[in-house]
C-alpha cells in the first residue's frame, strides 16, 4: 500500500461496523487424529459474492482446507448470510474482508470467488496476505492495487473463462498465467469441479509455503 493511499483512506470515514458472520473450520474440529494443525501452513480466508456468503464454503471447502492442516475460515460481507446489510458497496465489502483477515490468528491467504475475488484483491492492497487466490474473478478493478508484501498470486478460472476479458486483465495486472479447471464456473462449491479446484489450490499453496 502506498503512503498516499493510506493517508487518503485514514481521512475517509470508515464504513459502519457490522457484526460479521465468520465460519471457521480448524484441523482440530475434524476429530481425526491423523490430521494435525500445521503451524507453518498459512490459514485461509474465503469470500464470494454468492448471497449465502460464508455458508457457501461450508458444503465442502472449509472442511477440505482444514483436512490439509490449515485453519479455514470464510466471511459473509454485509448483506450476505448472517451478516446484516449496511451501506458501503465495494469499499465496505473490502473493509469486511480486511476486518475478518485480522481476526484470523495468523497471516492469512485470501481466496476470493467471482466479485469476491475483486474484494480479496483490494483487501490485499492494504493487508499483507500470505497469498492471494482469485477464482473466476468478476467485476475486477481495472488497476488493482499492488498487493502489500508481495504475496504469491494464483488465478483459477474454468476452461470456458480462460479467454475472457476478466481473466486476461488479471493476468496482465499480476503477470500470472491462469490455471483452468474443467466444468462450469457455477459449480465451484461442490461437485467434481469444486474438488478439482480445491486440489489445485491446495497443492499450489503447499508449494508456496
Amino acid at each position, binding site marked *: 500500500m502506498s503512503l498516499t493511499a493510506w493517508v487518503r483512506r485514514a481521512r475517509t470515514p470508515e464504513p459502519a461496523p457490522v457484526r460479521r458472520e465468520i465460519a471457521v473450520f480448524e484441523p482440530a474440529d475434524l476429530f481425526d487424529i491423523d490430521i494435525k494443525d500445521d503451524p507453518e501452513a498459512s490459514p485461509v480466508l474465503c469470500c464470494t459474492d454468492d448471497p449465502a456468503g460464508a455458508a457457501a464454503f461450508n458444503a465442502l471447502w472449509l472442511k477440505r482446507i482444514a483436512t490439509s492442516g490449515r485453519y479455514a475460515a470464510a466471511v459473509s460481507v454485509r448483506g450476505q448470510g448472517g451478516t446484516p446489510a449496511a451501506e458501503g458497496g465495494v469499499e465496505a465489502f473490502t473493509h469486511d474482508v480486511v476486518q475478518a483477515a*485480522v481476526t484470523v490468528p495468523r497471516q492469512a491467504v485470501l481466496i476470493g470467488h467471482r466479485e469476491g475475488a475483486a474484494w480479496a484483491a483490494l483487501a490485499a492492497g492494504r493487508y499483507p496476505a500470505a497469498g492471494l487466490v482469485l477464482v473466476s474473478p468478476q467485476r475486477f478493478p481495472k488497476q488493482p492495487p499492488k498487493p502489500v508484501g508481495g504475496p504469491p498470486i494464483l488465478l483459477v478460472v474454468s476452461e470456458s473463462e480462460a479467454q475472457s476479458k476478466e481473466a486476461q486483465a488479471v493476468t496482465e495486472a499480476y503477470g500470472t498465467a491462469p490455471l483452468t479447471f474443467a466444468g462450469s464456473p457455477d459449480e465451484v462449491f461442490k461437485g467434481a469441479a469444486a474438488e478439482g479446484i480445491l486440489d489445485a489450490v491446495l497443492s499450489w499453496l503447499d508449494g508456496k509455503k
Partner: protein
Amino acid sequence: MQEYSSQAAYDRGEAVCVIGAGASGLIAVKNLRENGFEVDCYERDTVLGGLWNPQNQHSPLYPNTHLVTSRSQTEIPDFPMPDDWPDYPSAAQMLEYLTAYAKHFGLSEHIWYGSEISQIDTVEGSRFEVVVKPAAGSAARRLRYGAVIIATGHHWAPNLPAYPGQEDFRGTVLHSSQLKDASRLRGKQVLVVGGGNSGVDIACEAAVNAAGCVHSVRRDTPHLPKYLGGEPTDFALARIGGRPKFLRRFLTDRLLKGPGRLAARMGIEAPGPGSAGEEPVRNGRYLEHVGDGSIRRRGDIARFDGFDVTFADGTEMRPDLVVLATGYAPKITLVKPKLLGVEGDSPYPKLYARMFSPRAETLAVAGLVEPGVGVLPIVHWQTHAIAHWLHVRKGDPERAANFRRQVVAESDQYEVESGGASPRHRLAVDAEEYLASLGRIIDILEQEPAK
C-alpha cells in the same frame, strides 16, 4: 542461534538487529521480515508491547490511561484494529492489539526476551557488534549484524524538576509514571504539576477521586476535546488537511472556535493549535472540571516549604501528594552519541529524516518522534523506508546516493515552533509535513531501477 563463547562475537551475517519489542520494535521486525531480512529482536523486559504493557517493569501507564489519538489514526496501516472497538481504545486494548499483531505475523519467535543491549559499536566498516548485557553470573554475549534499528522508546527516563526546598518537603512526591493506582489519590489533597497529556489526564482522575486537586502549569498550551464536530478530533482535523489549501484555514478556525472560547473562559490563553503549532492536549473532561471547580489551576511552583507549596503568584497550598507529570527525557545510552548526531552543546539526537544515523548507513532509530498524531502509522512508514533503504544500499549505489541527498535535504523541513522548554518539544515534528517527507523518501527508494 548457536552457542557462542564470551570471547568471539557470533556472526549473524546480514541479519538485522532490532532493539526493543515495544510497538516500534514489533513493527520494525514485521516490516524487515516482509522485505526478506533475517531479524533478531532484543527486549530487556520479559514481555512485549513496551510501555503499553503494565507488566513491563518500567511501564509509565497511570490509572485509566486511554489513547488520546483515535483508533483510525492510531492503528498500523496494514493491520487495522477491530472496528467494533471504541474510538479511543484503552491501554489494555492497545496491548491486546499489539499482542495480536505479534501473533498474526509470527514475530515472537524472533524476539529474545530478558536481553538488554548494553552497547553497540561499528565494526568492519558498516557492520555492528552488539553486546547483550549478561544476566547475573553469566558472561556478556556479543553478536555481529549487518544493520541495527534502535526502537527503545523515549518514555522511560522521567524528566524531574527541582524546586527550592523540595528535599525537605514533608508530603509525598511521585512522577506520573509511578502513580499506577487511582486509590493513591483517594481522600488526598493532590497537586499535579505539568500541562501535558499526562498532567491533564491525572488532574481529571484526581478531580473525581481526591479530596482536592490543584493543577500547576508553567505556561498555557492549546487544549482540545476528544471530539469536534461529531467526529474524533484528530480525524476531523486530518480530513481538513485533505481539503484545498485556501479552505483549510477557514475550516480549521471554524472547528476550533468553540473549544478556543471555552479554554479562554477557563483562563487558558494559548494560541490555537494551528497547522504547524505545538501538539495540543486532548481531553474533553478537563475544562469541565476546571469549570466546576474540581480542578483549580495555578501557575508555576516557586518553592516547597515543609508541608506547604508556594506558587509564583504567592498563593499557597498544603498537598498530601504531589504528582510530577513533567514528562520524560529521551535517553539512548547504548550507542556513541556521535552516531546519533549528538554534537556540540545540544544533548539531542540529530538524525536524518528523524531516523537515519548521520554517521553510519546501517544504523537507524524508529519511533524517536513526537508527531502529535498516532505514532504507530509513522513508525510503520519509517521502518518501511528503513527496510527499503537497506536493500537499495546493497544493490543500487546510484539510487543510494540519490537517497542520501534527499534525506539530508528533507531533514529540516518539519520542525515545530514551540514555547515549551521540556525535552519532548525537541522531538516534535509537524505530522503532515513529516509524512509527506517520508512519502518522498519512500518514492525514491521504490523507483524501478533504471534498466
